[in-house]
């Protein structure tokens, strides 16, 4: 719950509600990736983390 509150607070602060559907799809897709992969260890990528 704390996360959702913070997250909506962030979207309203940044006035980027258009990101919401994009983020939902990404999160669903990303969730699928997480569920189907065994580990969260990714290769080192400079700008991603």
């Amino acid at each position, binding site marked *: 719950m704390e996360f959702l509150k913070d997250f909506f607070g962030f979207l309203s602060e940044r006035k980027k509600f258009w990101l919401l559907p994009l983020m939902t799809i990404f999160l669903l897709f990303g969730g699928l990736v997480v569920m189907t992969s065994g580990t969260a260890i990714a290769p080192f*990528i400079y700008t*991603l983390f």
Partner: protein
Amino acid sequence: MKSILGISAFYHDSAAAIIINGEVIAAAQEERFTRKKQDSSFPKNAIEYVLKETGYRIDDIDTIAFYEKPFLKFERLLETYHAFAPRGLNSFLSAIPIWIKEKLFMQKLLRDELKSLGAEKKVKILYLEHHMSHAASAFYPSPFKSAAILTIDGVGEWATTTIAYGQNNSISILREMSFPHSLGLLYSSFTYYCGFKVNSGEYKLMGLAPYGNVNADETKKWKKLILDELVDLREDGSMILNMDYFNFATGLTMCRNKKWESLFGIPKREKESELSQPYMNLAMAIQQVTEDIVIRLGATARQLTGSENLVMAGGVALNCVANGKLVKSGLFKNLWIQPSAGDAGGALGAGLAAWYNNKNLRVVKGGDFMKGGYLGPEFSSADILPVIRRHEAPHKHFDDFDDLSEKVGGILAKGDVVGWFQGRMEFGPRALGNRSILGDPRRPDMQKKLNLKIKYREGFRPFAPAVLEEDMKIFFDLDCPSPYMLLVAPVKEERRKPVPKGYEELEMYNRLYHLRSDIPSITHIDYSARIQSVSKKTNERFWKLINAFKQKSGIGVVVNTSFNVRGEPIVCSPSDAYRCFMNTEMDWLVMGDFLFEKRLQPPPSEGDYKSEYELD
């Protein structure tokens, strides 16, 4: 009493810093405790240390300040994928699990980690913008009431470069350059293309650049190509990268190798392969472009703020050659650079920003507030003695430090190499005389010996001098102190030795081993040196040692390099120091008031020490 714990973590080089009533009490990088270079994990050990230094428990902390805003960073990731789609699928598949499993839930992640440190209450966690953390780390500990602030790095959330103005207890951001247009990432792309590791090899690229042939058509052509094809550089120092050539926004590499190969005509250099002249010329070309950009940004900062003081932080602020050029440009009367300019320093900056966000008074009284950068743990004789007992290490104890420094001054003058372990550990990437390996700069073979037999690193890499502050102008063309080894300046003309005709055409090592001055092992190929000026006020023991060396040798300069081997974090404890000493060809070790001679020590335990550390 108000206590703030600053944390940087989960990217690279995690660190913790503690600020009590605005005073920086302690700060340390996690890598020093875990012995894993640039450790990015939650800085549990560093937090435990900074708490111990103050006598606080985790529940005594009033505010936790985290050095960046995770949601904002995630926004940048999503918008980048959106903008570049369908490119970047691989990168998305690699990055997103980490975000969804951990980073997006940073609040929970931090709370869980704090709980494991014994936290029972929910302390307030503040998230500062990455570049605000850098700006705060540059301005608040500086000796200035007001200053222009320049922060340049790879990328934080969106910002890659900011110009700000700091006045008393506030900072206002005036200009910002956003991802993917980044000087740090441009420099890292060349680091990558020249076969060095991104995020740690930038130093090597900077050290390699002077081997480039400044007069070669290739160097001039490549500099022009960088400016014509890769970077659209504007008068004010802002720039637009031509993303057709770069892959870092959505890919798993820094640049598009094939496009670079057709642009420059040389392939990406393989890691650890031999270095040939074209890569040196390429390093020189990008270094020149970088200096040009930094000077332009400096000029813009001066124009926007009107201040005659400049402070800097961010990874690019560790490019001490560019910093030296900035000093020489005369754009500012005073320059101060945060010694922990990289992301570790973000912990310190976040903590200070949180303190001054409450409009607390900031009083400037002369010097800076970094305590010489000596913010890490200190070990007493009682901590050293168990190490001596465990290894049954023959040693000599000195009751009077003056006797010890006189003895070691003589040892150095004889040409031996000494591991020097004293007082509080440095915060930041440079060893400033408390965790250092020292040598005689007059010896022509010292650079080779240190690189190949002690540090086990590439032979081309230069070493820095630590010079008595009052003697600095005898040796170097630099008008301001450089206490944190962050300025490069030329060795005085009168100390130089001429080079033979056709010198620039010689093979790299023939040029390197040519005697260029009367302090050859710290004189780089272009007669420059990365200077640390040592003040008696800041580090009396180190000053006394250099002074003792001066009595024996006539010069108040020693070679100062960090106490570690390639890929190893700088030593933290007496145990780390003794182990490193015994597994390299160092001749002597000094820990506190104890002196150890290598030839008297029992043989080290089996195992290949240097292979324990991944090459950087």
